[in-house]
């Protein structure tokens, strides 16, 4: 008994969870192949899943900084995403330029917005329990999306990229704009990974996450780091918003749909873990698409939540969570 138990403990401590998760994806692929009897459909589901998953990770990336590092349950993330959509829309409709030109603008604008929100509001609730910040960001989310409603009205808007066509990838197709967004997710993940791991700011952010008081005692301006981190996290929503604008219907509540999914991705990947967010975003995308093929008549989200709970049971700290 003792050896068996020792074995399981050791097995659980090896990064086996990602392996299991990837195994699960393969099982799903096999099942989808059997169910649909079509390689084309399954191939398309995998590609779409990957690409959509990229979008989810894109959104989760900023959230994992804010939620995972600052411990703020930011319900306004989706609303910030909508702001980025409208910034892009406004830019394109006034200049007529290619939407991708708006990328730096969206990033800068959202960084400013996030930093402002942290500085003016959230910094005053530092150290308060989870739920009061949750309520604050909930209020912020309502505020932002209804200000957008006042400014732009409730009608759906869109931003088109000229000549956006399907690209053939091994028999499956995906739109260029979606592939660009997927690429953006990879770049952003790499960027954040390097930022957190290699830069002075990154070290300060991790230090603040590990011990706020300790960070103050080595001379880090904790509030400034909060403002910068929240700004950065929101800037990620800015990048995400611009990148998904070409294939999204733009409304003041467009971001809400992604909010919860982004939280699921963050928790699944382990709080504050950028790489975890990337991988679990992709897992969520794949489960959603393959689940759609497998469970006809059931919402694919059911499968996503089921997988989420299974992962939590197997690894209560998320797939890549390091905290004990």
């Amino acid at each position, binding site marked *: 008994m003792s050896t068996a138990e020792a074995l399981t403990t050791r097995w659980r401590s090896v990064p086996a969870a990602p392996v299991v998760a990837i195994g699960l994806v393969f099982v799903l692929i096999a099942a989808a192949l059997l169910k*649909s009897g*079509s390689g*084309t*459909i399954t191939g*398309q*589901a995998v*590609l*779409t*899943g990957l*690409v*959509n998953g990229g*979008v989810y990770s894109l959104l989760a990336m900023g959230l994992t900084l804010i939620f995972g590092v600052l411990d703020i349950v930011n319900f306004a993330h989706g609303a910030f995403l909508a702001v980025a959509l409208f910034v892009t829309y406004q830019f394109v409709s006034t200049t007529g330029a290619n939407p991708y030109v708006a990328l730096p603008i969206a990033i800068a604008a959202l960084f400013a917005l996030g930093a402002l929100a942290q500085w003016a509001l959230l910094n005053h609730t530092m150290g308060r329990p989870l739920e009061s910040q949750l309520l604050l960001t909930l209020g912020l989310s309502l505020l932002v999306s*209804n200000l957008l*409603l006042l400014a732009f*009205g*409730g*009608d*759906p*808007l*869109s931003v*088109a990229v000229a000549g956006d*066509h*399907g690209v053939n990838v091994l028999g*499956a*197709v*995906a*739109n260029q704009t*979606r592939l660009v967004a997927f690429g953006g997710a990879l770049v952003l993940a790499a960027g954040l990974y390097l930022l957190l791991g290699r830069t002075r700011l990154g070290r300060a952010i991790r230090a603040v996450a590990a011990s706020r008081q300790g960070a103050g005692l080595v001379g880090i301006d904790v509030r400034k780091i909060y403002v910068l981190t929240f700004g950065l996290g929101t800037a990620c929503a800015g990048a995400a918003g611009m990148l998904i604008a070409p*294939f*999204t*219907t733009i*409304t*003041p*509540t467009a971001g*809400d*749909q*992604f909010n919860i*999914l982004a939280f699921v991705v963050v928790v699944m990947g382990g709080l504050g873990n950028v790489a975890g967010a990337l991988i679990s975003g992709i897992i969520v995308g794949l489960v959603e*698409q393959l689940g*759609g*093929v497998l469970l*006809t*008549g059931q*919402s*694919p*989200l059911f499968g996503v939540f089921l997988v989420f709970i299974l992962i939590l049971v197997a690894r209560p700290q998320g797939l890549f969570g390091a905290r004990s």
Partner: protein
Amino acid sequence: GCGGGSTGSGNSGGTIKIGTLHPLTGPYAGDGQQMENGVKLAIDDINAAGGIKALDGRKLELAGGDTQGKPDVGQSEAQRLVTEGVTALVGTYQSAVSANVAPLAERNKVPFVIDISGDDGILSHGYKYAFRMQPRNTVFGTAGAKYLQEISKAAGKPLPKVAYLHESTAFGTGVFKAFKAEAEKAGITVDPEITYDAASVSDLTTQITQVKASGAQALVVTGYYKDGVLAAKAVSTVKPPLDAVYGIANGAFDQPQFPTDAGPASAGYFDVNYHLNDKSPEATKFAQAYQAKYGQPPRTGAALAYDSVRVIAAALERSKSVDGSKLRDAIADTDLTPLTLNDGPITFDDKGENSTALPALTQVVNAKPTVVYPAEFATAKVTYPAAPGA
């Protein structure tokens, strides 16, 4: 706490309040505001024409309520309006909200004219005070199958098989079931049936690939605006060999901005929906007035809301009373030509359904959804087959 809340202040002179319940905030705010505008326009027009003549020219007054798209908010707003003495209610856009308001109207004996809400179930409980202007979901499904069979046959390319893609709630499922029953009668196989969750969907490429793999000649789509656009984009990416993409009660394919949002590939898209009767001078006048006042073209929802107020006003003329039960009886006898497509003047059956409401078939022609069928209402010819993107 007694029934008949409207009898109190109503009869004794002053304005007659019309309560509206629309989603003015939240995800459906765009449509909700259009419908609210439709109500305002109707009230203005009626007041300008001298108010309710049978009641000494008393004027109508709007008492607005915002449902925020939430059923419980809708109901408590309705409760508030009723106790503030509204004579009738108009609303609500979403079926779940209407389903919440209908029993309240019933218990308070306040007539409730549903401008938009398609779910069959709302009026299946024997309510006496609820009436519906738009064709209900099963009517859409049935008409949709009929039209599709007729136009494909007329074009000499009868359909053996169609694929059906619909959102998974009661709306999509209801329309689908009615369509399938009718289509199978006409010898059309409906396969595969593919569903999606409209609230969370962000891409329909896989689903359209399933359609392509199935070899169906046409694709029928029932859903909301956002997912309708997603479907169109997926069709243009996957390029399934289809004779037609055919919406039924689709929230997107008949909308003026749909061709812009979906791009040139949207050309030729069909939709079976309620629609302004473009051949009626009244409807044209309405559209111009709306455009002049609100700076954008009206959607059919605005017209249905406009007509709802007209129905109430006309009933007031006949009932000569704001008493709920008398007004209700008068509404039940409505005989009024609507601005939307119809098979005759508005006629409410014993369930309160407008039995003459007629779905139109529109097609995107020159980047504009245009009525193409039935022929007597058409302003353009049906193009069939209409391979998407062609």
